[in-house]
């Protein structure tokens, strides 16, 4: 018997106000245990889609079924119960700056589980060991590099052993080594925890190396999807331009403007 998908987005539309739709009739299905990428240009609605999945926003049309529940039907208690089963990594980590690395990772455990201090210590150390930062437990977030902060945030995000991990632009502003570390961690954690991961990113090449399946979005719509090798070989002009990073194509290099000659006041 095939398991039902862990996330099922059906014909979802959403706009912050009625005149500007950000998502238009988006359907996405994420199978359990997979690592799925959602890619597209800045402003294409991919982060909004992630927030719909996290039930931070409610779709204005369509249905979002996450971890077996319709997000529109959840009350606050139900929403918090659902979020206890998911983890989210924010773009810049969003570590609590007034808490040490250790306390940051301990935070979700302290809030949701009454554990004896020794057990809590062991759990935190195991999570930090998984991201290679056990030695940094005593540091404050301001003392960490960008890559380390991202790894601590990852340790915090897996503290409650989530079934679903959401990554919002996890690679932004990382050096190549930190980049490689994060990419590997995403894959390894996903497989060892038996979780499902959704990565929203525009770092295509690197992300294509780690995901099982990818959705491409443009202007609030899913315009292409497939396995990484299918996407690389895709003849679709937008996907081709995006994957290969060509400056001109279906997405023009120039912002719409009047005739160049007219702006320079050249005689016709």
């Amino acid at each position, binding site marked *: 018997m095939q398991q039902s998908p862990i996330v099922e987005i059906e014909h979802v539309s959403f706009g912050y106000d009625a005149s500007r739709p950000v998502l238009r009739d988006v359907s996405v299905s994420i199978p359990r245990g997979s690592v799925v990428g959602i890619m597209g240009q800045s402003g294409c609605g991919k982060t909004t889609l992630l927030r719909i999945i996290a039930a931070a926003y409610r779709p204005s049309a369509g249905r979002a079924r996450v971890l077996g529940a319709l997000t529109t039907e959840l009350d606050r208690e139900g929403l918090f*119960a659902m979020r*206890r089963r*998911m983890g989210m990594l924010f773009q810049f980590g*969003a570590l609590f700056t007034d808490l040490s690395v250790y306390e940051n990772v301990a935070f979700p455990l302290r*809030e*949701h589980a009454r554990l004896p201090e020794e057990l809590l210590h062991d759990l935190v150390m195991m999570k930090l060991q998984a991201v290679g930062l056990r030695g940094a437990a005593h540091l404050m977030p301001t003392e960490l590099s960008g890559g380390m902060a991202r790894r601590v945030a990852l340790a915090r995000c897996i503290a409650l052993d989530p079934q679903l991990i959401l990554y919002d632009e996890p690679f932004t502003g990382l050096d190549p080594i930190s980049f490689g570390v994060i990419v590997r961690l995403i894959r390894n954690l996903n497989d060892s925890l038996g979780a499902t991961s959704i990565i929203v990113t525009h770092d295509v090449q690197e992300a294509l190396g780690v995901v099982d399946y990818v959705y491409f979005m443009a202007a609030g719509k899913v315009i292409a999807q497939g396995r990484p090798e299918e996407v690389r070989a895709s003849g679709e002009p937008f996907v081709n331009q995006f994957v290969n990073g060509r400056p001109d194509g279906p997405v023009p290099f120039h912002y719409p403007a009047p005739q160049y000659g007219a702006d320079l006041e050249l005689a016709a």
Partner: protein
Amino acid sequence: MILGNLVAALRARLEALGGTVTSAVWRLGFAARFLAYLVMHSGTAFRRFRLTTAEIYFAGVLSLIIILVSGLFVGMVLALQGYTTLQRYGAAESLGVLVALSLVRELGPVVAGLLFASRAGSAITAEIGLMKTTEQLSAMEMMAVDPIARVVAPRFWGGVISMPLLAALFSAMGVFGGYLIGVQLIGVDAGAFWSQMQAAVDLREDILNGVIKSVVFGIAVTWISVFEGYDAPPTAEGVSRATTRTVVTSSLAILALDFILTALMFTGGNGK
């Protein structure tokens, strides 16, 4: 034609005024709902009182220096000014009464409130605003932790508990400053200074009313501070504006509330 333009211009003005008033009322309503939600979700702040204690330390203990030093100087100035005036009427022994009543009834709660707003209120707004800007509040929300219960409520109660204590310390320090100048420097009789003060200052009439004032100011300032921080646009400019607004709004609120409370407490119904 001219009349038409005039009507249109007037109408635009009127609409702008209406818009400002409506948005101000809307914001006030939002702030009131925020306060109601905060109070209803204050369980964590009291169940895990350590969270609130930490905020009492930040808002209260770290404000001690500025409060104590200001209190001392205000008391010293009161004694100097009061002495020159009282002496003209041969009532220099009443200096203690003048210093104590001014401080306990008015200056203690008001000046301590103003200092508290600029020292602690601004810090609360900036901290909450920055936590919002750096997505720390969203992260908390995603971890199924209510940021209002976990972050805002402890700060609110920390401030509300700290403020009356700070005002009391301010007054005590002011009385001591008055004693230093009046008795030690100018030479007013110490016995008269203290005994007249003891006889004139009434526990219910003066001290309790002063405490009520400081509690009200504490609630107002901390409410404004946490609300401005939570409502700040998540940008550097937004947080800086919110911090400024906290200090300005809190100060005005303290002065306006002080007038209202004074009118209610010291003039109504008691024949004075």
